[in-house]
């Protein structure tokens, strides 16, 4: 009864409230759409450029569709002149290699930091957190010198080795493992499992949203990494995608932007497709660990 009298007395009529809702919705979505356009524009530009003939790329007018479809030529040229599949394969080896070792190292470390009691555990965790603050550029020089001395430059190993220890992974998994019930771990101990078996057979299977999320982070970072491969790789056969693109741009294509963007599209596609497939898991992992 009171509700009825209140709404009748107030100035808010149904038409008003509907209008208000509509405006709020339009505003919110407007902002989000603007953000999305801002993020997507470079990709769209890349896609559009990759199907334009050279003449149109430099014309003053902006168009989202070429007058003359030149995609086939651009893509064929890129595939013919640059070993794109080779670059992609290098990228795959690099990402898988790094990710495998990262998981093998970070999961037991994170378990120990989250679930085992030993003196100095908290100090160790603080050190891990400090490790998050050190950018890769800092140890680049000594690492390069060490690899050069060992004669390991121009190998897959040299590209991977600085990233084998992922402090971020340790941190992420540690946060995730902390919420794993102690009782289950104790039950496994009573059933005769060793700590390593507990890590791999009991705790890890429950952590796969976190593993999926981290895998995406790791793969994206190293697929797109130019800095470190540029330092240790001079052999085009070993180049991962970004470095390969650089070699490709240097050599014969010069300013053939249509072919360049076609190559870039081919090299970006696997990541984008993988992300779209794993999108749900990715978001789950991020929200579940509380790292936002």
């Amino acid at each position: 009864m009171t509700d009825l009298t209140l709404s009748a007395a107030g100035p808010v009529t149904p038409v008003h409230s509907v209008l208000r809702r509509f405006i709020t919705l339009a505003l919110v979505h407007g902002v989000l759409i603007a953000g999305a356009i801002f993020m997507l524009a470079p990709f769209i530009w890349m896609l559009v450029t990759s199907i334009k003939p050279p003449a149109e790329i430099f014309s003053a007018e902006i168009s989202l569709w070429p007058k003359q479809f030149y995609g086939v030529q651009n893509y064929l040229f890129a595939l013919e002149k640059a070993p794109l599949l080779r670059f992609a394969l290098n990228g795959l080896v690099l990402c898988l290699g790094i990710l495998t070792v990262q998981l093998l190292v970070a999961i037991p470390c994170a378990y120990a930091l989250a679930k085992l009691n030993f003196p100095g555990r908290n100090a160790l965790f603080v050190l891990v957190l400090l490790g998050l603050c050190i950018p890769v550029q800092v140890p680049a020089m000594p690492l390069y010198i060490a690899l050069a001395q060992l004669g390991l430059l121009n190998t897959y190993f040299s590209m991977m080795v600085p990233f084998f220890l992922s402090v971020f992974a340790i941190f992420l998994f540690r946060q995730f493992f902390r919420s794993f019930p102690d009782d289950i771990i104790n039950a496994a101990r009573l059933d005769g499992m060793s700590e390593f078996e507990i890590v791999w057979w009991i705790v890890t299977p429950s952590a796969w949203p976190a593993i999926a999320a981290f895998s995406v982070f790791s793969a994206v970072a190293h697929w797109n990494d130019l800095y470190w491969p540029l330092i240790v790789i001079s052999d085009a056969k070993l180049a991962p995608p970004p470095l390969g693109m650089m070699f490709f741009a240097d050599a014969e294509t010069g300013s053939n932007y249509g072919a360049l963007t076609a190559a870039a599209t081919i090299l970006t596609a696997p990541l984008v497709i993988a992300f779209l497939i794993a999108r749900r898991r990715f978001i789950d992992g991020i929200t579940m660990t509380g790292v936002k």
Partner: protein
Amino acid sequence: MATVALSSIAKSFGSTKVLGGVDLDIADGEFLTLVGPSGCGKSTLIRIIAGLEHQDGGGVAIGGSRVDHLRPHERRVAMVFQSYALYPHMSVRANIALPLTMSRLSLRQRLPLLRLLSRRRREVMRGIEADVGAVAMQLQLDHLLDRKPAQLSGGQRQRVALGRAMVRQPAVFLMDEPLSNLDAKLRVHMRTELAELHKRLGATFIYVTHDQVEAMTMSDRVAMMDSGSILQLGTPSRLYEKPASLKVAQFIGSPAINLLPATVAAAGRLELFGRPMALAVPLAQGQAVTLGIRSEALALVHGEPGAPGRAWFTARLRRKENLGSEYILHFDLAGRDAQGVTMRTTPAIAAGLSEAAEVTLGFDEAACHIFGTDGGRVEPRGENGATGSVVPLRA
């Protein structure tokens, strides 16, 4: 089958003392319950027996030999947890089989791929499968073997946890509040099942609970704990009928025991609300004591109160609680320095009372428990002049 002997077990977490030198001998095949309020150290004690925590002092012996240096799975104990602690990604079958695969297969035979090289493995697995089947049959889990724990109800999960404990045929079962997560009806049912299981297996059971009903209904003996030490150890009826301290009396029994303040008058005679009682205690005049009266010991007094050996007081009925077969009546002691009292009675008697009725309640003085100011039990002096005693309260 095995005895369990604890000698002066002490444990602190940081500066908090959790257990202060607990001694406990548990007989072979006994069902012993550790009961007490939360934080009394009972869970820590059972985890020390299991080997999941290490004691700061004292020792644990199972089957006559010390196990302090042994890892949890080497102690021939199995544990059932309050949260069931099932492995969430494994089927019921795999959950129950896990202790056996761990003990019967070598590390090489357990590793993926490498295990394919072992010819003996298949044979062992067949044995495990048979044992799991047998346990599942006993617990009526055979139709659930392929499900995941998330697809089971609370009671079914509890059974799986029991199965996982039983399948190893341990000498000692440790149960840490296994029924606390079940609903009331299922809890009553599982109580019976656990008691029957104990009888059938003949193993030693150590059972932790904060629920005194579980302690009373299932155990051979009950150890009531508080603040890291055992207040009283004895059969359930012993704890109920002769509580060694006020804390035990308050914890055991439902509804909780009625407590009335009394004072010691001349010659050790007790006075309740200023009226002398026949009871006498070996305490100095003027001391305060607490009388504990079970709710079933109270009765309505019709006519003139003050029959020999029966104390009485007046009260006002606040609320009637209908439990079907019986009533719990709640009374206020208006104007008196005491909490209300509860009385357990038959529906017929309860029907004769209306709310807010003023009544006289009486009780047999021999049926009441007397506790001193330190909470220790005080035995009254007998009629024939036998001296009473003050039971020293163990710290």
